[in-house]
């Protein structure tokens, strides 16, 4: 665990303690269960966003994709009677294709990620609203899908399955990002795409894969969201979710310039965001201030982190100079070098 992640964890605990002291309901099983569910839902696609941000890119289409895929999933299962495993598979395949389209537009046609995914945001939202004719997509009244419901909104030991899903996917992604060859390549591409290419890394493949991972995790999240809300209102479902994902990643130590960040960080970022939402509710702060609270905390957090890093860099420079001044007395280094100098 990095120092950064540790700091975030401490912040989560401090905020939690304060909220608990003001309102003990915070630690009630009901509240914890609900919050865990939301953390799971938002954490799933925030992890995906992390992969894209690692490349120095961004995916703004997440929220709209959740709406579009949600509408499709609900309609497939509820309206057309497609068996739900097939429907999930279909949604995952569509997600893969959308991610592939983003990736190829960015790497092959050299378009900017912001532009590509901004257009995605508009197109998928429009497609969802057009397809449904602005009508809310829902399951027929009273129908039940026990296995699917158990998988998505069921609980084990009081913990919602969405949370377990995020943990499992988080662990897989942790290995993928921090321990695999692909992860190393991804980090290198994010930090310096040119140097990565000159080192023989297939940068186009690596970047495209990151967008595919993001879209697939978003598709998984879309299924969980659809089952959680039971109905999908195409014009509002998933609105601004991409910003939650980006905020979670930034809070978790990702740099929008790419190359920096950890899975633990982005998960903790998602936890903190939901904790703040919860804080607004529990402390009786008007919910209209919700976004303002979140924005303030993110700004303060990132600022504090940056100042801390600057302080550390300064101290390191001062130390290097101190060492050099102490070494300054013996003859210059270049002359003590063994090769040559028989003149």
């Amino acid at each position, binding site marked *: 665990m990095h120092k950064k992640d540790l700091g975030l964890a401490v912040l989560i605990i401090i905020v939690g303690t304060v909220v608990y002291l003001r309102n003990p309901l915070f630690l009630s099983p009901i509240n914890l269960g609900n919050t865990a569910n939301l953390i799971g839902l938002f954490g799933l696609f925030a992890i995906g966003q992390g992969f894209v941000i690692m490349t120095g890119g961004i995916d703004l289409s997440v929220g709209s994709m959740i709406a579009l895929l949600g509408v499709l999933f609900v309609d497939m299962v509820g309206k057309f009677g497609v068996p739900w495993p097939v429907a999930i598979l279909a949604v995952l395949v569509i997600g893969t294709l959308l991610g592939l389209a983003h990736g190829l537009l960015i790497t092959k046609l050299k378009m900017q990620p912001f532009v590509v995914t901004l257009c995605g945001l508009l197109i998928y939202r429009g497609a969802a609203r057009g397809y449904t004719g602005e009508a809310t997509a829902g399951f027929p009244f009273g129908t039940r899908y026990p296995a699917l419901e158990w998988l998505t909104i069921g609980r084990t030991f009081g913990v919602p399955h969405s949370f377990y899903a995020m943990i499992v996917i988080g662990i897989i992604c942790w290995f993928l990002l921090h321990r695999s060859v692909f992860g190393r390549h991804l980090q290198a591409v994010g930090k*310096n795409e040119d140097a990565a290419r000159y080192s023989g890394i297939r940068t186009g493949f690596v970047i495209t894969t990151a967008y595919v991972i993001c879209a697939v995790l978003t598709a998984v999240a879309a299924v969980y969201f659809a089952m959680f809300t039971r109905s999908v209102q195409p014009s509002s479902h998933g609105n601004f979710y991409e910003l939650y994902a980006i905020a979670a990643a930034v809070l978790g130590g990702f740099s929008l310039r790419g190359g920096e960040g950890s899975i633990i960080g982005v998960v903790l970022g998602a936890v903190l965001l939901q904790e703040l939402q919860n804080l607004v509710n529990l402390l009786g702060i008007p919910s209209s201030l919700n976004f303002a609270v979140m924005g303030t905390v993110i700004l303060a957090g990132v600022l504090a982190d940056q100042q801390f890093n600057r302080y550390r860099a300064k101290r390191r*420079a001062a130390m290097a100079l101190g060492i050099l001044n102490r070494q300054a007395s013996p003859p*210059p280094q270049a002359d003590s070098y063994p090769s*040559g100098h028989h003149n």
Partner: protein
Amino acid sequence: MMTKEDPKRPLLVLENISKAYTGVVALCNVSITVMAGEVLALIGENGAGKSTLMKILGGVVQPSSGHIIIDDVRCDGFSVTESQSAGIAFVHQELNVFDNLDVAANMFLGREIRKGFLRLLDVKAMRAAAEPLLRRVGATFEADTPVAALSLAERQLLEIAKALSIKARIIIMDEPTSSLTLSETKTLMSVVASLKAEGIAVIYISHRLSEIEECADRVFALRDGKAAGELCRSEIHHDAMIRMMIGRDLHSLYSPPSRPAGRSILSLRSVRTRARPRALVDFDIHDGEILGMAGLVGAGRTELAEAIFGIDAIVEGQITLAGKPFRAASPHDAIQAGVYLVPEDRKRTGLVLEAAICENICLADLAAVSRNGLVSQSAVKARAEDQRIKLGIRTTDVMRRTAELSGGNQQKVVLGKWLSMRPALVIFDEPTRGIDVASKAEIYRLMRALTNAGVGVLMISSDMEEVIGVSDRIVVLREGEIAGSLSRPEFSEHNVLKLAVGAN
């Protein structure tokens, strides 16, 4: 130094200036005195600390320790404003002119003369004020000429006139002649002489030692961030300056080949690259030799190297590597075949600076340090540690960020990346640019070790002494084509240049 009879007085004194960046020390206890009306030449290799020193003088960078004394007043915290009010002006290598404006507008940019109630620009007054300054520097263009119409040399005169317009007392010229023709250089020399006569101090930074012999009153040399010595007017000679810059005679850096050149490792036959589709390239790199590739900037040397390495495309022609056809569509392909490139721009394309040293060393061959797609951190460290010892990379820990290393050690990390793999041919593009002398010697030694081990070595270099000293054979590129090849007895600066320019 200064005696009481000396009419000159120190305009500027730098006292024990040091500057450390994160982990890298760029300057260490440098002291310089600048007198009124003298031309002080500042010499040193790339990376010796000249640019850091100039940034400190310009107030852009703050020294970590030391003082700047101007007119006997000690300044703490020397900012851009203070630098300007002290009368320090820069004539930069890359000229800071705006070619969408005219000469007078450029000269008064940021301190425009205004008039009237609305404080609008007083174009007439500015042009009138600019004219006498332009005459003083011997410019033949007018104040209302658009800068887009000026040649590089004329733009430089404009910069000098601009320095005069802010009543500069110290003018710093950074490689002022690097893009000038001979006659333009002569004009500049006479401008420098007239500035000197007016009592203005000129700090003249140049790699062209003959110019320095011509115009400098004093030479100050920097080496690896430290003062390497001073020469007064009578001592300024080519050899003395080189010795100060590199700390020894040049010849001690090079070692001869251990055996005569053998079979061809890489051969190019009638090759055309996408970068220069009109130029035909034919040459061979032989076993056991360091092939130097010389040429003017823009002759297409880097483009050719990148085409061989798969960055850029080869349009037609045959390339064989150790007798087998070879054509890389991407760096990935080239690396698979054992063809490696040590690129010209270490920071942009050679290294992931923000990553750890060990990450960089293993970056091109992660498969070798991983099992089932998972990277073994201990294998990464072991491999990097091995290279650290073999190459003498000076660091306490291979887990440190590569950015913290000095230029020479960074270059060794790039080499470590390739030497830890199985090279068949290594292309070095400007391998010693901006690095210290000790590291240079080591890199030359490594190149020689590679050729002794049967690896092909192609060295692209713009440093004439390096090309002549290190290579066993030289090919010269001109406008994308091989202008000729020189064997050791034919080596001379004159012969290389003759081929590079294509004149007699």
